[in-house]
């Protein structure tokens, strides 16, 4: 389900209306049981791991914590993670906008099948996502011999890390934009064109402002996954310290070397990123569901 569909729901967030209505109000004991069971589960399965990351990170004190973050291998892992996201997110942004434009503004045979194919990377195991690039670019792969003859390294180097990241984050922006742009239809764009606007003017002045929050939402989720991907990147990285390690892979190496405090220190940066992601996501959902206050803030 897309964020936009959730936020545009006419009744989003109105829990109290169910409690005011005698027909939809549950008995106090039912409310108590549902909430306590649900919230205990929530606390154990979601809250506790989150808290554990930060507490374990500071277990050996702030000095160890910060030392783990500024160590050269950690810095190079942070750099590679930022590079991978900086390439993957814009590529998938261009793709998402282009796919949504084609799917939402035009009719053509096989459209539904195309939408299904766009979702495919979500259902492929991250490990398989890494493997496919090994099969194409690895030494045993389709282009392996040619690449090695020309001394080009893709697998076990930065290019494959970027490719694997692009693959796992492939649908994020497209799937936020497609349902919204389909719902909006093409009337506004057609009006703009018939009033003499060029295609690009229509796109940047009509389409983009209409979808900007959904676009931002997709970018936020895409970025979070790009920076946090582990399985796919792990297969193609080769785990060369200081060269082909992203932050999640660096966490794994530290953890396997029993440097738990350092592993959790780097992990806490990623957890912080997750919290920022959730905060931004909640804010964007709120902006989508409160369009009237658009210019007020």
């Amino acid at each position, binding site marked *: *389900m897309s964020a936009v*569909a959730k936020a545009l*729901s*006419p*009744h989003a967030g*109105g*829990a109290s209306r*169910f*409690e005011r*209505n005698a*027909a*939809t109000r549950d008995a106090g004991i039912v409310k108590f049981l549902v909430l306590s*069971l*649900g*919230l205990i*589960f929530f606390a154990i399965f*979601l809250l506790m*791991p*989150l808290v*554990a990351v930060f507490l374990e990170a500071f277990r050996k004190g702030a000095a160890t914590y910060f030392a783990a973050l500024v160590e050269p291998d950690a810095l190079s892992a942070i750099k590679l993670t930022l590079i991978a996201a900086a390439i993957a997110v814009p590529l998938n942004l261009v793709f998402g906008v282009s*796919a949504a*434009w084609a799917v939402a*503004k*035009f*009719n*053509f045979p096989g459209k539904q099948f195309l939408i299904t*194919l*766009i979702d*495919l990377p979500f*259902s*492929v*195991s*991250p*490990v*398989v996502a890494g*493997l*496919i*690039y*090994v*099969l194409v670019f690895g030494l045993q792969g389709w282009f392996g011999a040619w690449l090695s003859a020309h001394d080009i390294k893709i697998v076990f180097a930065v290019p494959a890390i970027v490719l694997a990241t692009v693959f796992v984050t492939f649908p994020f922006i497209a799937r936020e934009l497609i349902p919204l742009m389909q719902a909006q239809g093409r009337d506004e764009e*057609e009006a703009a064109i018939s009033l003499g606007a060029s*295609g690009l003017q229509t796109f940047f002045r009509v389409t983009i402002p209409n979808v900007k929050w959904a676009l931002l939402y997709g970018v936020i*989720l895409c970025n*979070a996954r790009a920076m*946090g991907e*582990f*399985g796919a990147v*792990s*297969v193609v990285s080769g785990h060369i310290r200081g060269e082909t390690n992203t*932050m*999640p892979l660096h*966490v794994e190496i530290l*953890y396997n070397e029993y440097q738990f405090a350092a592993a959790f220190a780097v*992990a806490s940066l*990623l*957890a912080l990123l997750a919290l920022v*992601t*959730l905060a931004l*996501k*909640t804010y964007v959902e709120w902006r989508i569901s409160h369009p009237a206050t658009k210019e007020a803030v």
Partner: protein
Amino acid sequence: MSHSKTHRVLPGFGLSLGFTLAYLSLIVLVPVSAVFIKTAGMTAEQFWTAVASPRVVASYKLTFGAALLAAAINCVFGLLLAWGITRYTFPGRKLVDALIDLPFALPTAVAGIALTAIYAKNGWLGQFLEPLGIKIAFGPPGVLVALVFIGLPFVVRTVQPVLEDLDAEFEEAAASLGATRWQAVTRIVFPTLLPALLTGFALAFARAVGEYGSVIFIAGNIPMVSEITPLMIITKLEQYDYQGATAIASVMLVISFLLLLTVNGLQSWAAKRTGRTY
């Protein structure tokens, strides 16, 4: 179709569809097809040896068993949480609502080491559970815990919007016709939620089957006992057995396709039932 051809006022159809198809082919379709092309080059015996060796079969059992159980657990607690968030007011409701998506946002490796820190022998909960004879980390129960963690938001986020949109009228009508609250919930509300709940189940299951990062830290990865199927692919790759890795990957890909089609079918059923598009 012909209508759109005569009426194509907007520009950019060829460009946007062309770029979409080219990018989709380059990043997804061609690399994924490599798995099937390489698999097609194997003899039946080679393929069978790779995908049906006892160690790999043990990994299927664990992966699918734990994924099914985790999705079922998520259905129960996901439904409770979705119900609580949409139907009740309580302090911290907005915060709980926002944090439900944590497993989507938290990198899987981080989740994996955090869960291990909680359930290991000397961990936060492990230190109380192990004396009771409950061993979670470094065995199949650890796999289950990790899969429950990553699957929860799928159920909550598919059920929640349906619950929010559900018109109070139906329950009012049931109450005015003399139904008890229990009857109204089980006979009116629950059947409406069922397609969404099944969709959530299928999504959580599909994600759990392919999950790797959060599982490997807590699973212990004992051959025949707690190895998941994605790990078998990694293991084969580390032994330079590309053929074996590819064969297992082809099995997983076929299952992914089938699950994707199932989810699509369920979603269109749910959309018909509730008049909502996903």
